């Protein structure tokens, strides 16, 4: 099937280093993690994270409806507003029936559900919120964006764990390709920095244990890496068929050239040691884009800082891209934003393409000996990037890869 070119015409972000796309980009370029001790996690085995701070989310959301939204829903709505404005669109004037919303998440409203469970246990049913279900169900980011923007086309909430963001972008691209909509608001959001989730990650063995300054603990591809540092945030994009975007005078930030997805079908948390199924997702994305491996100028790696995950991905990158394109891993700065990570990293990959700048991997002097990859370390690297790939590999073995290029 011949696909129409799909353009990213708008981008919005809210992350631990910025409340907008521009401030996030500045923070990621600087290569310094904001990870810190989180007072609400006092007593937890892992009591630190990268969090969105310095913003009153309810004030930013405005109106009367913030009370019914989980933190992750507010993130998504704020990022969506930025993306739509960035695209030069006005929901007051579009045909909402032709606007789709596809916003993924991994854990959805687990924080809201936990809060309600505590209220029920401690104070009884009358203490629970009438909005308790809305605070829980993971389709609410898409729903609240649709409500706010009068988008009455189809809406979806893909969940593929840490690949959810790339899955959402890929699904939205398919919907545009199939003519199911003319505009797609797509991306992902997450906020699970609360004791139950943090304890779960600690007990799973995936989280980096506290060892000194939290800001130094996420070290993707470093020999002494010890695990994930939690992050949170959202990235939302506006996607359109490129010719139609051009016709309305919009400028594209980038094109989605291809996407690929596979499932390890091996283990819930451990990647398949061969990495071949994840590699197949890379190959599928490259095939979809019509690229050869050597066409890839840059890889935005999943790079979680877990011992096994990074080793598997480093080997995959070495095999899939033997020409050694420069690699970055934003989780060193942002922590692991879970379901939102893929969308945030795709957004950062777009900014790399636009600016010709690859941000450094935080806390990394050099990759582990034996990793045959060209990691960008210490300072941002200025280099033209026309074609780039972003990897996402989720719990459950769900792999998603997106290929992005200059318009």
């Amino acid at each position, binding site marked *: 099937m011949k696909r129409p070119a799909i353009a990213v015409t708008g981008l919005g972000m809210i992350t631990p280093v910025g409340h907008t796309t521009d401030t996030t980009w500045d923070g990621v370029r600087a290569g310094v993690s904001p990870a810190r001790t989180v007072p609400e996690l006092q007593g937890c085995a892992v009591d630190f994270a990268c969090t969105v701070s310095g913003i009153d989310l*309810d004030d930013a959301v*405005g*109106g*009367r409806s913030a009370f019914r939204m989980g933190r992750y829903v507010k993130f998504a709505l704020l990022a969506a507003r930025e993306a739509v404005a960035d695209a030069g669109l006005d929901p007051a004037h579009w045909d909402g029936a032709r606007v789709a919303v596809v916003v993924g998440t991994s854990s959805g409203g687990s924080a809201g559900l936990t809060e309600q469970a505590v209220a029920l246990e401690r104070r009884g049913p*009358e*203490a629970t919120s*009438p909005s308790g279900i809305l605070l829980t169900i993971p389709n609410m980011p898409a729903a609240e964006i649709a409500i706010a923007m009068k988008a009455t086309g189809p809406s979806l909430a893909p969940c593929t764990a840490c690949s959810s963001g790339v899955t959402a972008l890929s699904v939205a691209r398919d919907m545009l390709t199939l003519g199911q909509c003319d505009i797609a608001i797509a991306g992902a959001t997450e906020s699970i920095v609360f004791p139950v989730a943090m304890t779960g990650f600690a007990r799973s063995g995936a989280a980096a244990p506290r060892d000194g300054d939290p800001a130094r603990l996420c070290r993707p591809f470093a020999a002494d890496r010890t695990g994930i540092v939690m992050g949170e945030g959202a990235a939302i994009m506006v996607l359109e068929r490129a010719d139609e975007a051009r016709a309305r005078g919009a400028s594209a930030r980038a094109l989605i050239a291809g996407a690929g997805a596979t499932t390890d079908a091996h283990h819930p948390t451990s990647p398949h040691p061969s990495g071949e199924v994840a590699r197949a997702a890379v190959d599928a994305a490259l095939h979809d884009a019509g690229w050869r491996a050597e066409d890839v100028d840059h890889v935005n790696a999943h790079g979680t800082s877990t011992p096994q995950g990074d080793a598997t991905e480093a080997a995959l990158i070495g095999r899939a891209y033997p020409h050694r394109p420069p690699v970055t891993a934003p989780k060193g700065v942002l922590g692991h934003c879970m379901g939102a990570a893929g969308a945030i990293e795709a957004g950062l990959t777009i900014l790399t393409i636009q600016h010709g700048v690859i941000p450094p991997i935080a806390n990394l002097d050099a990759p582990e000996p034996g990793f045959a990859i060209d990691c960008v370390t210490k300072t941002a690297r200025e280099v033209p990037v026309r074609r780039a790939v972003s990897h996402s590999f989720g719990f459950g073995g769900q792999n998603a890869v997106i290929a992005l290029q200059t318009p």
Partner: protein
Amino acid sequence: MNRFAGRRNRKIVIQLFRAVGGTGFPAARTISTNPMRGIAMKTIHPKITEVLTGTFKVPAHEVLPESTMDSLEMDSLAVAEFAVIIKETLGVDADSEKLYKDATLADISAYIDEAVGSTAAEATVPVSNTR
């Protein structure tokens, strides 16, 4: 025109439950609810102001004795949430649809005051007819 004009002086019987003495058993009471009574008081219970401006981000200048939840664009879900917060913070239990949805803030203040039997200081706010 006051939206309650047609119902002025009407007695609405409501069941207002309040936990008594920590026993967990509600005490049912019947309260006279003249919708105009609160406006005459020109007062709003400070908790109402706090919840509306804090949780629901209603601008303070819109929190007036004659305001209703409807006029403040508080939908039924928001009013139900408001009722839970009032219950949790003041111990006043009420059917949000019957008690809060159409009443003025002055009326609601009167209900709450009567329910808690409190003579706590109330915030006096100016009545505005300029909206």
